[in-house]
């Protein structure tokens, strides 16, 4: 009888086991409810549409970052790639290259830049932190060189209209992000590539023994991070109507924070796309709410830091107690 009871208790407890995503969803819900109560403008179409547009750029960068982090790496060059792809596309368009080619070419170059990070990490055996720290500086320098540190204005209208467009009431920026989320979820959860990413992050030795092509997978992981940053850079340029030389500066920090809040572990093999998406939303909602409420920006910054640390602590605590 007693044994049965404990079994039932255990079952009940198991049902209450919270996955990272559910904890985050709960936190997001609490935030949203509070903001709805305390502000006039939070739960309005305009604000929600603003919120998803504000989140999209960082959200897209963070998707690529998630895969890199799951594989046990880090990519500090994402902010520079965001800036580069924006400036590069703007330059091409200014020189008469058709919009679609300018966009595709910039994304391709971003992909290759990411691939080179992968090359440095795998073939050069340079720790990811150092390799991408280097490329962060190299790419930012390249941006300044090609743009002369000046904004590039006067871009074609068809390109600028993209970021302003809505489909069925959804902002285009959000839709692009949404499709990239679906793509990333499919990739990480339902393809051999996705499994390989987790395996490499868990143990490079195991990955080698199971015959995974680590070289190609590493190129692809960093390449994808570059690709996502490239897309984000294009969207940012379209939204701001200018190629901005300083664009994307510091974005690596928001991306890493989104992943970490979303349950990704910097020691690899842990993390999900959905978690990162929620992490990105939490960061953006805090910023949005802070602006709406007129909260002291310095306090907001402190809260932001606390949330990053607290999210990881809670996650570690939960895992330790579920084992």
């Amino acid at each position, binding site marked *: 009888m007693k044994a049965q009871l404990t079994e039932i208790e255990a079952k009940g407890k198991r049902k209450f086991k919270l996955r990272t995503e559910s904890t985050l969803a709960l936190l997001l819900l609490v935030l949203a409810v509070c903001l709805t109560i305390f502000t006039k403008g939070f739960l309005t179409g305009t*604000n929600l549409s603003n919120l998803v547009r504000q989140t999209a750029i960082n959200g897209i960068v963070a998707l690529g970052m998630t895969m890199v982090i799951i594989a046990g790496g880090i990519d500090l060059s994402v902010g520079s790639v965001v800036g580069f792809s924006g400036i590069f596309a703007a330059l091409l368009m200014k020189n008469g290259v058709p919009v679609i080619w300018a966009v595709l070419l910039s994304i391709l170059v971003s992909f290759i830049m990411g691939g080179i990070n992968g090359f440095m990490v795998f073939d050069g055996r340079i720790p990811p932190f150092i390799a991408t720290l280097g490329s962060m500086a190299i790419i930012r320098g390249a941006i*300044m060189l090609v743009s002369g*540190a*000046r904004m590039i204005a006067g871009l074609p209208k068809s390109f600028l209209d993209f970021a302003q467009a809505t489909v069925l009431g959804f902002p285009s920026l959000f839709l692009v992000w949404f499709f990239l989320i679906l793509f990333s979820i499919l990739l990480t959860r339902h393809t051999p590539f996705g499994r390989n990413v987790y395996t490499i992050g868990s143990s490079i030795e195991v990955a080698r023994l199971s015959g995974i092509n680590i070289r190609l997978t590493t190129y692809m992981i960093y390449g994808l991070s570059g690709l996502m940053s490239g897309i984000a850079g294009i969207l940012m340029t379209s939204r*701001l109507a200018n190629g901005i030389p300083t664009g994307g500066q510091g974005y690596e920090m928001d991306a890493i924070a989104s992943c970490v809040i979303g349950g990704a572990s910097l020691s690899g093999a842990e993390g999900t796309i959905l978690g990162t998406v929620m992490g990105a939303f939490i960061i953006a909602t805090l*910023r949005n709410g802070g602006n709406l409420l007129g909260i*002291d*920006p310095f306090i907001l910054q402190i809260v932001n830091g606390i949330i990053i640390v607290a999210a990881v602590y809670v996650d570690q605590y939960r895992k330790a107690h579920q084992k």
Partner: protein
Amino acid sequence: MKKRVAIIALLLLGIALMPTFAATPKKVAVIIKATDSDFWQYVLVGATNYAKEHPDQVVVTTYGPPSEADIDKQVAILEDVVNSKPDAIVIASTSSDATVPAIERATKLGIPVITIDNKVNTNAVKSHLATNNIKGGALAADMIVEKLKAMGKPLSGKVALISAMAGVQVLTDRDTGFLNRMKEIAPNIKVLPTRYIDNDIMKALAAAEDLFTANPDLIGFFADNNHSGDGVARAIKERNLGGKIAAVAFDSDPEEVQALSDGILYALILQDPYGMGYKGVESALQALAGKTLPSYVDTGATAVTKANMNEPKIKGLLDPMTLKK
């Protein structure tokens, strides 16, 4: 008679050319805060233009760290420059203290130092040329009130203040000047708590959007540099509120100039970075010639609206690159 005139003319020409042949051009090092922004590029254009206009008097070499966050890198650059022993140094020091030892060392070595933009806490500087940012901020408040009056709106309601970054002296000065003048000339206008945007246009845009959402009764905006101005302009444009909001921003870049001519921003408050570079080098030469210089020169702040933006003098302020030689 004609002969005599010719001889005198030749003599005069000879006297005029004498210093040219006698003196070798002075080497002046110009160090800016960061290479990543239009503003500092304008300073360099001013400095190099002076050299191009006076090739016999001065040769200008330019230096600068990649970003304004690189205080230590700028100090290292200054130390290296001092070691290379130029004739004079013109520096826009990012930190008011970190560069002091190197500047004092330069002065001891007999290299005169002129500071531009940011004041440095030492007496070893020959002259300081800068915008009076408190005055500039006050000018922004004047322009917002001017626009509100032109629109026939009462001087009451909410005005938002977006600042590029916290803890930067020139920005703090602009904000203080703005707030004080606002209190003085429009005491019934409430200025909302300052939002900081890490000098990121995307964040400025987000902040401006959010302020519109939270305050439907917003009547004005003050953005205290170009990136914050770009974000505010974009938010106003996206909401189709151009002309209905009294928006004023500091500095100029292509996006701000576009917004000004589209009537989205009512006014831009412009400093004279070109003049800082140009007059900086000029002052350095005067110091080398042994002249006593004023300890502080206000390089001025000018309000530009759609009405005067096409005047030749203003055009040079809006885009000093057009002055490049």
